[in-house]
């Protein structure tokens, strides 16, 4: 089917695509591990269960059943159609055509028919999703960060790309079917194909050579499209198709209400109260550390993985009580800002060999104090996220920095702190009156 030159071109193209993809994935991995250490590797059975239920089973998506079914079609289609990509790649390397067909016989026809039905369904769902974004304008898909610029375009581009890929796959099969009927050389009898046979009408009037040209063009465009899509992921919000899996595995297993403990401060208080326990001066020499997070690298690596896994669906922001009552806070924006920031830091390192201060930080330059102050720590965003992202962890860490490193808190909070410290209650009452209610 392919000439030697074409085979070489194919191998080079595939090799380059895979190399470039791996290079970018390594960058993401490096960026994620710029975050602080956090052990999230215990209780493996529960973690695998989460991968199975949350990532593979998309359990949380089913809160909105209709969207969940449509999303599941794209997801299943994506995974299953990849089996066909395997054949296409092997065909490309070896220069054969439909090399699995002779081995699988009737089962091959069955498989291709499954792929075709899925491809058609994926195509339809992508059109519906485009309608939801651009005509129905579902609020969470068009407001805030998604109202303009790259995030808006990105969402549409992915859908359009998938429509093009599925279209090419079906048209390729349609031209192939006509060629099979003509007994064209190399075109293995593998049909009939249910969906593409509906499209054969477009191709029947062409000569065999023209058809072969069409079929080859669709084949090349399809596989080039796949390679493009793979490498587009790095620049897109669409990384969740990969990162949802590790994100489910490493999601925190503790109760949602439990904030991460700051051992350094815990020890400081302990040594203050029980000085006999304090380590000697030499033993106590530790790196001075920042309390809470000012920049993205002060966050746990899991928060950075969260940021890359976010597909900007906006369920978190939709459920956020602050956002729903008109405050500036949007958990989705927190995630997008974190990703943007760690990306900038990564590029800075790529360019300079190490991070060179750019005069910016996640706090203030990306996320403002007003946003952070609006959070009620209600965990609605965490509960909503289908891929186990915790915007609240980032908010909490930034708040810790504000209060402990900058003493930046509203006057009322300072009063509350003073009351807790002096009166053991957030209000100005005498601790002696704590049980006065019993005497009223």
């Amino acid at each position, binding site marked *: 089917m392919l000439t030697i030159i074409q085979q070489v071109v194919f191998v080079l193209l595939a090799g380059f695509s895979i190399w470039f993809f791996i290079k970018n994935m390594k960058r993401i991995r490096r960026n994620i591990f710029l975050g602080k250490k956090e052990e999230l590797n215990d209780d493996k059975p529960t973690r695998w269960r989460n991968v199975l239920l949350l990532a593979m089973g998309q359990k949380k998506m089913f809160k909105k059943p209709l969207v969940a079914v449509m999303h599941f079609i794209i997801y299943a289609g994506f995974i299953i159609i990849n089996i066909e990509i395997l054949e296409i790649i092997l065909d490309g390397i070896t220069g054969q055509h439909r090399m699995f067909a002779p081995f699988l016989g009737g089962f091959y026809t069955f498989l291709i028919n499954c792929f075709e039905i899925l491809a058609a369904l994926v195509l339809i769902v992508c059109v519906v999703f485009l309608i939801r974004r651009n005509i129905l304008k579902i609020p969470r898909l068009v407001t805030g960060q998604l109202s303009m610029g790259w995030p808006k375009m990105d969402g549409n581009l992915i859908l359009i790309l998938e429509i093009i890929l599925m279209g090419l796959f079906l048209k390729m099969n349609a031209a192939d079917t006509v060629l099979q009927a003509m007994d064209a050389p190399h075109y293995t009898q593998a049909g009939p194909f249910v969906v593409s046979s509906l499209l054969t009408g477009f191709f029947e009037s062409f000569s065999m050579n023209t058809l072969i040209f069409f079929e080859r063009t669709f084949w090349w465009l399809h596989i080039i499209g796949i390679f493009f899509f793979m490498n587009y992921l790095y620049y897109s919000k669409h990384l969740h198709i990969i990162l949802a899996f590790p994100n489910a595995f490493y999601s925190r297993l503790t109760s949602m209400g*439990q904030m991460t403990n*700051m051992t350094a401060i815990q020890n400081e208080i302990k040594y203050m109260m029980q000085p006999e326990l304090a380590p000697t001066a030499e033993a106590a020499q530790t790196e001075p550390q920042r309390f809470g997070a000012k920049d993205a690298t002060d966050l746990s690596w899991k928060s950075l993985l969260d940021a890359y896994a976010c597909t900007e669906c906006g369920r978190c922001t939709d459920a956020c009580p602050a956002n729903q009552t008109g405050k500036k806070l949007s958990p989705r924006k927190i995630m997008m800002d974190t990703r943007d920031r760690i990306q900038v830091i990564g590029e800075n390192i790529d360019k300079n060999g190490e991070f060179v201060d750019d005069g910016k930080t996640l706090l203030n330059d990306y996320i403002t104090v007003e946003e952070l102050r609006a959070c*009620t720590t*209600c965990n*609605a965003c965490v509960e909503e996220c289908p891929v186990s992202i915790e915007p609240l962890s980032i908010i909490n860490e930034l708040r810790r920095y504000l209060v402990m490193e900058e003493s930046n808190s509203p006057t009322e909070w300072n009063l*509350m702190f003073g009351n807790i410290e002096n009166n*053991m209650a957030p209000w100005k009452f005498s601790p002696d009156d704590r049980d006065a*209610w*019993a*005497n009223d």
Partner: protein
Amino acid sequence: MTEMLGLMINLKEDKTMDVKRINPSKAPEILFWVGCAGSFDQRAQKITKAFVEILNAVDLDYAILGKEEMCTGDPARRSGNEFLFQMMAYNNIQTLNMYNIKKIVTTCPHCFNTIKNEYPELGGEYEVIHHTTLLQELINEGKIKMSEGGAFKGKKITYHDSCYLGRANDIYEAPRKVLETLDADLVELKRCRANGLCCGAGGAQMFKEEEKGDKGVNIERTEEALATGATTIAANCPFCITMLGDGVKNSDKEDSVQVKDIAEIINESMEK
């Protein structure tokens, strides 16, 4: 004169609650952690008293820490002040361990969450239950029985899930089970259980002005509760009760709609 004084003392004693206080020589079966709101906030004190009345009625071996109780540190931690949180946690854990406390019940889901989930890694390990869970247990054991023709029979009640009992700790059933025993007409809010909307007080918002926006979170939530047509909004958290109470007043509905803690509702409805 002495007679009068005696009368006054008598009067005062009549009004004084019969509360069991911690006995250094014998740990109670269960410690009632009152919390700052329950101790100082006038509205929340009523919840505390109602709960104590229930505890007395079922003759439970409980006690309160009294003046030795301190803020758990929840609002400090959630606003970012880990130092203050750790300080409060340290002191509270010292006190609780000193009295050899094994089990704690609390009427505040914030205290509940902090003691249950955040104290263990700091050295404070106790069995902690929220008062709605205890009430359900007491009902199941037959220790609490609803009186005939209870005050809420046939009345429309809606239940507001607090974030720290619900999402944070997955307790959705116990409060509902308790309310079901009232023979009332229970209606769910549009956003309930894991989808429940915050009252607006969490994350130390209770102690500051809300950020600029279109509307108060408590107003949004109260409107949703009022839309159910319920005449009683039941809650499980002193802060939610303040927020929703303010919301009801804001809608000028305080004469027709009451916001009550589940302990108050049960205290009014049980046989004693």
